[in-house]
């Protein structure tokens, strides 16, 4: 695979398929890489890997718990990258972490280490347009797609800049809040999806609170696809095996594909 995350996702979208990106916190269990394989086998279009941070400001209780567990088990960026390098999956992998881990050495070294291990995208939720300059340059230099977040509170001018500067896809937040499962999808999500789709041809994926297949299908109708994180991590923390997580991802895949028909 030599294409970028964005090229890969655009090609997948071109087949008429809504995009599905499930998440796992790296290091949360000793067998976490099996989860990545299960996701890929279940029809994921990319997989998001959380690099755990002690103070995840934008995460709700589930991903906090997963992060704490991974850190307590001795997970470090270096160990994650070693394991990622051994993975054999045919979809792109995207790192998601907080600024403090990115700036430990230089942003350039961090980006270089990610690409060297085969990662093709990066999401840093606490690095908004104001602070992203150096990181965006470093990522671009490494051919790593830096995905930016768009929020329901973003002005139109900001949404325009976000769609211009984001790479890979645009990460649309379904609601004002943290990650975590939610019963309902607020009306503002549909509005944000429409607005972003009007501004860019880049894929637009919804994330935060996407919890079950019907919801995923509904959201995908307003954009190009979804990221599913807490719902899967809740199951994993409650003891679900990689196979069961794969089955859940497959059920979301089916709902998405049916919705698209």
């Amino acid at each position, binding site marked *: 695979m030599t294409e970028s995350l964005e090229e890969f996702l655009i090609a997948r979208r071109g087949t008429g398929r809504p995009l599905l990106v499930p998440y796992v916190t790296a290091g949360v269990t000793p067998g976490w890489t099996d989860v990545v394989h299960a996701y890929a086998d279940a029809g994921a279009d990319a997989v998001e890997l959380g690099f755990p*941070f*002690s*103070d*995840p*400001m*934008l*995460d*709700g*209780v589930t991903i*906090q718990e997963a992060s*704490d567990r991974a*850190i307590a088990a001795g997970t*470090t*960026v*270096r160990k994650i990258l070693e394991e990622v390098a051994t993975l054999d999956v045919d979809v792109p992998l995207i790192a998601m972490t*907080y*600024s*403090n*881990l990115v*700036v*430990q050495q230089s942003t350039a070294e961090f980006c270089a280490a990610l690409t060297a291990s085969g990662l093709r995208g990066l999401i840093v*939720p*606490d*690095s*908004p*347009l*104001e*602070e992203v300059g150096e990181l965006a340059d470093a990522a671009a230099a490494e051919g790593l797609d830096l995905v*930016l*977040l*768009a*929020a*329901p*509170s*973003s*002005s139109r001018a*900001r949404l325009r800049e*976000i769609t211009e500067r984001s790479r890979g896809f645009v990460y649309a*937040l379904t*609601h*004002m*809040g*943290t990650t975590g499962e939610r019963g309902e999808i607020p009306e503002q999500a549909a509005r944000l999806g429409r607005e972003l789709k009007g501004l860019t041809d880049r894929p637009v994926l919804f994330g935060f609170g996407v919890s079950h297949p019907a919801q995923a299908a509904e959201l995908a109708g307003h954009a190009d696809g979804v990221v599913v994180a807490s719902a899967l991590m809740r199951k994993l923390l409650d003891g679900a095996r990689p196979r069961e997580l794969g089955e859940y991802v497959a059920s979301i895949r089916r709902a998405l594909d049916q919705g698209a028909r």
Partner: protein
Amino acid sequence: MGEMSWSGRQYATVPAATRAMRDPGATGRFGTYGGRYVPESLIPACHEIEAAFREAWSDPEFRSRLDTLLTVYAGRPTPLTPAWRLSHELGITLFLKREDLAHTGSHKINNVIGQALLAHRMGKERLLAETGAGQHGVATATAAALLGLKATVFMGERDIERQELNVLRMNVLGAEVVPVTTGSRTLKDACNEAMRHWVSSVDDSYYCIGSVMGPHPYPWMVREFQRVIGEEARAQCAAELPVGVPDYVVACVGGGSNAAGTFAGFVDTTARLIGVEAEGGAAATFGRAGVLHGFRSLVLQDEDGQVTEAHSVAAGLDYPGIGPEHAHLRDGGRARYETVNDGEVLQALLCLARTEGILAALESSHAVAWVIRAARSGEIAPGSTVMLTLSGRGDKDIASIKELL
């Protein structure tokens, strides 16, 4: 700028060019520190608060309302008290800036009245706050009651246990106290939880940050609201001291708000500025550059970038970071940061209580502990004058002190 007035007194301000602690501009940078490392969802709120603060701060009406409340409600100006017996014992001239005498018992009220007025002006209904020692929580609950706002205060479970008195005070004042059960269950985790809550309630809630930390404009805005400490102390020193300026200006540092407000009044003088941190929470001494709670600064962290837990007898100093402007003052050499340990702090608290009849907060006792140590070791030359900001009173700490004795 010509004349500026605080609480009715007039004195000349220093020319802008000589002022080190300035407006950090639109990017909120103090050298390489500061900035605005928050999720996109919060960026509009940060812009809105910055615009509202800039406007309010240059509005004479806002300033005069704030001045009036600081005077008739919070009890400003606070006195500058000569520490007669302790000075004699140490062979120096020690003055105490008595923030412990401000309403609610600490300097936190200066900042909170300012921010609460701003929130009110912005049409917000609720104040959110994090608190460690509970002093900022009590101040927030107080200002909310004063202005008819609601208050929700996030507090680590461990701090709730050791600062029980302040939890009761917040309840009596009508605030909701939300226990935080994650991580170290102290100030750092209370900040995380307050930020998370803020993201989901940003429309009607205003996050009233309790120290010179958080995303721009907070570190700057909180320093400006605390500047009153330094400006009053400067004028009081000018009146009291033959040379007008002390040799040393000392304050304790958690996030660094009482120190920043104090330093702001003396940064353009010859006074040596000393910030005193708890040994177990000394980001300026043992920290590395990093990003936490929305700003870049010095942070206590392990080699992998995981933030470590601070440990101090003083809940208000249990914070693994330091305000970005302090990191900048340290790098530039304009201020120096020292550490003292829990044992020294307790001794200092007892010493001040028994020589001066002042029961200081454990946080403030850090500053006292350094002065005692440095005067005894000769690091502070005999005969020097020292201006120490006593950030708060120690009633809240009685239970902890009893345990330590």
